């Protein structure tokens, strides 16, 4: 039972309270001028949709089949850009880096946020203070300041190494080593789990306590209750959070840019897809190539999202009643 579902449910109950009115509303013809008013209110968004989203999408699809550097007219090259991608070692590296980042940080964020949400779901007095403290990092995670701080914390003489030194482990800079640099960014993403946690927390509070009471009467222990009540009831939100966290993870840019000073280094280990796209499009002005990269990402994410939605009917539980 998600929050949005419950809002909708509330809206529909208030409709049912006045059945004749809602019935009439559904059947009535549109009031004169309502369509015009609707489009007038919508006009800023429609203009944005046309000129800043759909138009550019079409343009970038066209550019992906061309060679374009902003100064001379685009030159049609057919599928050359796409063919070139698959033999470009840096592109392949950027795909690997981005997938590793997503595969580690999405489950990381989900598990940590669910665990903390469960611990907070007891309704005690300091709840809002805890919630706020856990939530704060997710507001700061994409800032340049935090990326700078991360460079320091995981740097040669940073806090992490200072702690490890005391227990006798000596490490070099975590940022400077190709083996560890990406994992500092994964930790940074998991650090911002607060937003996801708040969504879980709101969902947990909607699970009727009668379910747990009934299960306890039937002799179900805490773990059994979690597996048979909490988890199924949360699946719509787990689905929603997987979707959001994944889409966000694919779009990460600032931390990698600041930590690697725009290079994606050391040894391409933090070369996020977005970072490489930025480099091709705006440092080297290979705008056709960058557009091809963007469309490959859109298609891949589109397929991924479609698969996720298709899988939903096997594991997402939509309760048939409130």
């Amino acid at each position, binding site marked *: 039972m998600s929050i949005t579902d419950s809002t909708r449910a509330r809206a529909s109950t208030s409709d049912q309270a006045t059945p004749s009115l809602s019935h009439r509303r559904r059947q009535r013809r549109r009031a004169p001028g309502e369509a015009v*008013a609707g489009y007038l209110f919508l006009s800023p*968004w*429609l203009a*944005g949709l046309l000129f800043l989203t759909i138009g*550019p*999408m079409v343009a970038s699809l066209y550019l992906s089949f061309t060679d374009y550097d902003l100064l001379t007219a685009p030159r049609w090259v057919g599928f050359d850009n796409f063919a070139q991608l698959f033999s470009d070692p840096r592109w392949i590296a950027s795909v690997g880096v981005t997938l590793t980042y997503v595969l580690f940080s999405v489950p990381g964020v989900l598990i940590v946020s669910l665990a903390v949400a469960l611990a907070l779901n007891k309704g005690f007095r300091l709840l809002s203070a805890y919630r706020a403290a856990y939530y704060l990092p997710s507001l700061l995670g994409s800032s340049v300041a935090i990326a700078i701080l991360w460079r320091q914390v995981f740097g040669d003489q940073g806090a992490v190494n200072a702690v490890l030194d005391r227990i006798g482990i000596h490490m070099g800079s975590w940022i400077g080593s190709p083996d560890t640099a990406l994992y500092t960014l994964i930790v940074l993403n998991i650090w911002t789990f607060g937003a996801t946690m708040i969504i879980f927390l709101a969902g947990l509070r909607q699970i009727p306590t009668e379910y747990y009471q009934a299960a306890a009467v039937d002799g179900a222990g805490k773990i059994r209750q979690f597996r048979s009540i909490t988890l199924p009831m949360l699946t719509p939100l787990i689905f929603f959070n997987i979707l959001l966290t994944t889409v966000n993870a694919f779009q990460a840019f600032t931390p990698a*840019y*600041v930590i690697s000073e725009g290079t994606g280094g050391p040894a391409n280990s933090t070369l996020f897809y977005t970072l490489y796209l930025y480099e091709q499009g705006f440092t080297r002005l290979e705008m056709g190539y960058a*557009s091809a990269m963007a469309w490959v*990402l859109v298609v891949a994410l589109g397929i991924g999202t479609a698969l996720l939605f298709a899988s939903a009917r096997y594991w997402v539980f939509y309760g048939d009643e409130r």
Partner: protein
Amino acid sequence: MSRATYTPATRTPPRAPRLRFGRTPVRSPLGRAVVRHAMLLTVIAIMLYPLFWMVGASFRPNNEVFTTLGIWPSNFTLDNYTEGWTSGQFSFSRYFLNSLVITGLSVVGNVVACMLAAYAFARLDFPFKRVLFAIMLGTLLLPYHVTLVPQYIMFSELQWINTILPLVIPKFLATDAFFIFLMVQFIRVLPREMDDAARIDGCGYWGIFRRIIVPLSLPAMGTVAMFTFIFTWNDFLGPLLYLSRPDMWTVAQGLNNFVDATGQSAFGPLLAMATLSIAPIVGFFLVTQRLLVEGIATSGLK
């Protein structure tokens, strides 16, 4: 808090005398609460430690920044702040002013444009409404990469590079569908009887919007304003693309340039400016956290 507290090796019989705290499962409600709070606080302390360390380090003499893990500075100094503020080609006053102008206009634009669109989706009926609403939701999942290059080309054709227009105008066109969605969710559950009453009193759609919907939606507008403020203040890619002249830079750009320019030598001033750059966000958060947290719970906004 030791791990043994909550993963006991063996199950103790319920009446067994508790020999040592930490070896047996804690069964009393008070004990459990203590354990839970201790765990929650430990995690918070680890999470927030880097932030507190940064603030503390920014008040230390530059040569002590690296050597101390503690938080409270023993030799309190403001040197890092005075030095950092004026370190670049332009002082941080300039960057803060630029960021404030861009963020302020973005907040106004986003709130107004999203509110208009949300009213239409939540209350009015017009042809293709369902299709357009589906498209709006679809743009939530669209990676911004696909519009990045053509938008840049368009804005450079318009001679908008090194102006704030490419950063601000999209906000007036409600390009961030998250905020429309949040407001639609809010307006949908407002009682329609008020609309009907206003209509009987002679209000048109604009009148209903201005006199009924806007005043009742102030909490949602506040949430949108806060999130827009935070996202715009943090935004780095946008300014990086469109503002190349140092006198146009935002705080984020000034800070990033500071890293490149100083390397390790001026870490104190760098941390001081990093602290200042997130101060407005933390400040707004502390004042409005209830609004933000409720907003995220109703819309899943991130």
